[in-house]
């Protein structure tokens, strides 16, 4: 059993250090002989055992004796730990490829391939940027009326829903990827503004009114709001200019914004979005599957295209 462990470990170390390659070859020879039901005649195990026990002996006679006596048992333990480690490493790699996180979809634990957890970060509904506190397993589109949100309907079987905030860094990171996704794939696309910061709260009625007045221009406005800086879009005058640039009648929009009907519509949309159990942005649903935080593009694409 020790030979198998040694072969795996020495092979990995041997990639970086040539002096371990010969030992790895010896270990391989030993493994091969074991597989072919022949005795390992290189003395590899004894040699390595002596080296390991010798090193331990420099520190503790008792531990060295224990190691020597239980070498085979410890080899088994190490073997099982290695198998477990390989399994979990494989699972982590699989999860990272599939969901952008080693820990699985929307799981925010440590991931060596994404050590800062960027792929799971959201701007929390409380207003501060960072990892949101919430239960990612509860995010859902069940009972959510998506018909009231801006939609680009392509009659596709695939639907992408982006719930984001214009002033959220992570939504801003995800937005170009979603744009790319919907431009490269035939999908239905729904955008819902869910402001997590007060400075862009005022954009809720503006968005409602803009979509109501001209659906095509709305998407241009949406792009511009994400393209420009967070500081700029926090200023009403700046957004008025954006509306003007896109071709909206600013006065008409402003009149719409203060109407009771708009106010009710905004509240209605907020209530609908709360049903998703959202706790931060971006929250993206692809064919009903919720993705919390900005994932790598491959994750979005695979969910649309499949394998």
């Amino acid at each position, binding site marked *: 059993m020790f030979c198998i462990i040694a072969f795996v470990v020495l092979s990995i170390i041997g990639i970086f250090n040539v002096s371990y390659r010969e030992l790895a070859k010896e270990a391989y020879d030993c493994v091969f002989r074991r597989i072919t039901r022949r005795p390992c005649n290189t*003395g590899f195990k004894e*040699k390595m055992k*002596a*080296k390991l026990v010798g*090193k331990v*002996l420099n520190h503790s006679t008792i531990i060295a004796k224990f190691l*020597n006596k239980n070498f085979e048992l410890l080899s088994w333990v190490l073997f099982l730990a290695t198998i477990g480690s390989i399994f979990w490493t494989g699972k982590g790699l699989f999860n990272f490829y599939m969901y952008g996180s080693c820990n699985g979809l929307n799981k925010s634990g440590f991931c060596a391939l994404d050590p800062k957890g960027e792929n799971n970060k959201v701007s929390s509904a409380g207003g501060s940027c960072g990892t949101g506190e919430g239960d990612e397993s509860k995010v859902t589109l069940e009972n959510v009326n998506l018909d009231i949100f801006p939609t680009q309907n392509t009659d596709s079987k695939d639907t992408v829903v982006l719930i984001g905030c214009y002033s959220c860094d992570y939504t801003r990171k995800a937005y170009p990827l979603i744009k790319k996704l919907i431009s490269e794939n035939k999908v239905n696309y729904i955008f819902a503004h869910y402001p997590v910061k007060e400075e862009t709260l005022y954009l809720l009625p503006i968005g409602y009114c803009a979509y109501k007045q001209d659906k095509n221009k709305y998407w241009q406005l949406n792009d511009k709001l994400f393209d420009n800086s967070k500081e700029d879009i926090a200023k009403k005058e700046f957004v008025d200019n954006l509306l003007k640039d896109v071709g909206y009648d600013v006065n008409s929009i402003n009149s719409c914004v203060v109407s009771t009907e708009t106010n009710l519509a905004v509240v209605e949309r907020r209530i609908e979005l709360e049903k998703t159990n959202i706790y931060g942005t971006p929250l993206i649903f692809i064919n009903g599957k919720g993705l919390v935080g900005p994932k790598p593009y491959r994750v979005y694409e695979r969910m649309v295209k499949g394998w």
Partner: protein
Amino acid sequence: MDLTKIRSDFPILSNQGIYFDNACQSLRPQQVIDAITEYYREYPACGGRSMHHLAAKVTQKCDEARQTIANFVNAKTKEEIIFTRNTTEGINLVAHSLGFKKGDIVITTDKEHNSNLIPWQILKEKIGIKHIILPSKIDNTFDTENFKKVLNNDKVKLVSLGFTSNLDGVTIPAKEIVEIAHRAGVLVLLDGAQAVPHQKIDVQELDIDFLAFSGHKMLGPSGTGVLYGKYKLLEKLEPFLVGGDTVSESTYTSHKFLSPPEKFEAGLQDYAGIIGLGEAVKYINKVGYEFIQKQELLLNKYITSELQNISGLKVIGPSDSEKRGGIVSFYIPNKDHHQIAIMLDETAKIMVRSGQHCVHSWFNAKNIKGSVRASFYFYNTMEEAEIFVRELKKICFVL
């Protein structure tokens, strides 16, 4: 002799741990290293061939080395000294040059190094000589009485024996053996690899016919060795390796060999090694065999007495350390000798040899897997011996 001063001559001793593998190869003092580098730096030319001044220098230096070695073993002339690569080559030279015929008998003991075993096995297969293996006594010492009995056969042509065994350090009674053999009209070849570095050998006093030894076990460069032979015998031997520098002239169909030693030294020689070996002999002369043997026996006595306290440990050879020179070879049944050696290296950088030490035949016959061999030389200290014992005891406790 000042041991500290001696040790300061060996650069490697300052930082490489405890070297107890001297039976395999000794360390080299700075003087030998300097002599070798001097050759490559100042006169890196051919010897005995070219006429230019560098070649003359090489020839002179090699002649000096040959003379030094001849004096060292008290050969009658320096022409009795043939440079070889090692003891193995020296023994093979005799084996292949002495003109063995079918039915000739060669006697060895049961604990010869492979270099003094395999050549006779080959001759047995190829020519049909008879190889008699003389069993040692129960304590692994030479059985002189039995030797006399097997000599009682006029077909015996050669007695080829290890002078000092690399297995257990036991030295045979060479003078007595040679006398007995010569009385029976039999030649004697001694494998002096483990003897010449550790005790004064006077080939004339012992009346040895052939003596092979290695440079690398006596402070000299690796790849150097010597075959001593009585000149009148060397003249009769046919060289088994021939070519460049072995002949005085040749035609397309014939050749005329040079006299010994040249006719046995085919091809370009290891001049740096030969010169280095000469320097090594000078160093041994300077230290003196009295000191060498005293130091080795001191360490062996201490270690042997301490090893007796380790449960189950068996020392190969006589229990009396004085009969084992600078070698302690031991094993512990059911404990792996290689493991012990590796752990000695890991714990305190103690370098020993483990395995069957090229005496597989003896181990196989005794059904012993192998042994750990600690072998000392004059530069080893009592402090090193104490560390060795301490670490070995720890290891035996753990295993």
